[in-house]
């Protein structure tokens, strides 16, 4: 796909965050592929379902290795029927499997909203039974993907405490979070970003878990707290680097988990910096940033030096044309301008 190349050219890596003696580099795409393979190895109850999972595209190459190794018994090619598949996933989890359902686009989640919310999100609370399942969905952007292929619906799922919603941003995290997601008794929505697939990072060979529900403080600073999620971490990284020369230093939190929100990490950073900017990977209005901003106001009132600010998409409808796209997505400049206003 053309935008793969496009992205590859534009890509700027985060600094590797792995470490711990690890010296092997993988891409985000390779990391999730490896995570799936290891999950299936560890646990014979893990199965994979989805449209195209066993076809040569292999969901951006992330199911190739599991297809080869585990074949069509555990990697199930499906019809295009997201609503039913989501119910199937729930049922399978109730009867002893650990299913992973994959969607090529986040946008397709809406077709199965009734199963995700009316059924999956409430099941444990109502019936008492665990529903260990994972739904992977990929957020896309650019190359005219437009209104129905570029949306990011993380915030729609954030109010349902029966769901976990993750947005891994690095190869290290995507592997560790996926393994945690599969291991969890709770249902997990696992939202990947297409533009991160080429990013590289140190990734341990073995299995490891990144805890669910926890943000990570990626870098420390004392002037302002910046919260990123998924792809917006990349802009934050770049903005933060630039600000150093202006002697502005930021705490950079990668949210990682949209539901639940790791408020402790956020509160303690804001208590230190007194300023908070959230960069949403989605429309500003009613985004997860609104909930964070409200909580921070309620709980860090005495520390706040200036109102919490949010940056995100100007509208929920994403345009297709190249120039419209360029105008649409906020970038490093908007982040820099906002931060400069906030700290002075």
């Amino acid at each position, binding site marked *: 796909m053309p935008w793969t190349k496009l992205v590859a050219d534009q890509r700027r890596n985060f600094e590797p965050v792995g470490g711990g003696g690890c010296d092997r580099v993988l891409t985000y795409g390779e990391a999730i592929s490896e995570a799936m393979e290891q999950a299936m190895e560890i646990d014979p109850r893990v*199965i994979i379902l989805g449209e195209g999972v066993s076809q040569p595209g292999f969901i951006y190459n992330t199911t190739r290795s599991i297809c080869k190794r585990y074949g069509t*018994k555990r990697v*199930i090619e*499906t*019809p295009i*029927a997201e*609503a*039913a*598949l*989501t*119910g*199937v*996933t*729930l*049922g*399978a*989890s*109730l*009867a*002893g*499997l650990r*299913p992973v359902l994959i969607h090529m686009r986040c946008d397709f989640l809406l077709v199965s909203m*009734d*199963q995700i919310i*009316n*059924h999956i999100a409430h*099941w444990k*609370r*109502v*019936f*008492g*039974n665990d529903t260990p399942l994972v739904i992977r969905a990929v957020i896309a952007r650019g190359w005219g993907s437009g209104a129905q292929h570029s949306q990011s619906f993380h915030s729609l799922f954030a109010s349902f405490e029966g769901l976990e919603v993750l947005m891994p941003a690095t190869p290290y995290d995507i592997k560790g979070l996926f393994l945690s997601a599969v291991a969890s008794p709770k249902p997990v929505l696992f939202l990947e970003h297409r533009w991160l697939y080429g990013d590289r990072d140190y990734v341990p060979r073995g299995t490891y878990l990144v805890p669910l529900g926890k943000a990570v403080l990626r870098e420390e600073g004392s002037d302002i707290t910046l919260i990123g999620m998924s792809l917006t971490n990349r802009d934050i990284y770049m903005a933060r680097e630039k600000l150093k020369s202006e002697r502005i230093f930021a705490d950079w939190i990668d949210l990682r988990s949209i539901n639940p929100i790791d408020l402790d990490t956020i509160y303690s950073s804001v208590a230190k910096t007194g300023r908070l900017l959230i960069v949403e990977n989605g429309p500003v209005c009613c985004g997860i940033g609104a909930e964070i901003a409200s909580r921070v106001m309620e709980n860090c009132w005495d520390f706040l030096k200036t109102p919490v600010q949010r940056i995100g998409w100007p509208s929920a409808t994403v345009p297709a044309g190249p120039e419209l796209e360029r105008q649409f997505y906020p970038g490093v400049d908007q982040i820099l301008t906002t931060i400069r206003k906030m700290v002075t």
Partner: protein
Amino acid sequence: MDITTAFYLYSTMLKIRLVEEAIVNEYPLQEIQTPVHLYIGQEAIAAGIAINLQPHDFIVSNHRSHGHCLARGMDLEGFFKELYGKQGGVTSGWGGSMHIGDIERGIIGTSAIVAGGIPIGAGVALAQKMLSEGITVIYFGDGAVDEGIFWETLNFCKLNDLPVLFVMEDNHYASQTPTEQRHAYADIAHIVQGYEIPTLTLDGNNVFEVAKVSGNLINRIREGAGPCFMRCRTYRWKGHVGCSEDDDMGYRPAAELSIWKTRCPILWLEKYLTEQYPGKAEIEFFSRRDYWQREIDSAISKAKEAPYAVD
């Protein structure tokens, strides 16, 4: 049908009927505060299918689930406690009548979203197939097939040869809308057969027919035939929700309910058993009724006494 089975079927149907009638009695007191969708008139279906199930089989049901769950062996006390919103209810007071379940007893749960449980049942069956044990019965009404998710699931089950018995309880209405106003096709069985899914239409008020047909289909499913489909023609006596008969509302033709009452599945069986086993039958009827009435009364009073479920 051998005598033990026949009386067992009778007993199950009677239990369901008496439970539903107890709810009708209790409901005006407004202690049961949950919308009830009563099963009176349809008992033969749940009873006839349940006898063919084994411990590792599962059922998934819908809003009209009392009969399915009781036939499958849901605990009466847990059932009533749930209706009363009490501690010890099968879903801890969180579910109410529309969300009962007990996975330990083969009841995955029930969805109050029309057709919402259908794909969940398919998922259960997928797990059963992979773990090589058991089959799943999915109960749903003639209304549920209006929803696309039913057709998606049918296709998925057949593609994967899942061990599912689809049980459509065709009681001629979805809420107050007659089937003909909702289905463009004359016969759903014909359409389902297009999937090469073994499909049978039967008298859902004849418990022997239900038991036999479902028994055969379930055997085929256990042997790996993939999904099978039963369309059970039946009728609900009460209104869609609540305890009144609502035949004065005008959506059902005047004589319809009374005609269907003459086809009461329990009366029919009583008549049959009386003819087959004169003397014995009457004694059995009395003792079963007496037994279940006591059980129900006891469950209800325990439910009433129990503390409310709280958070």
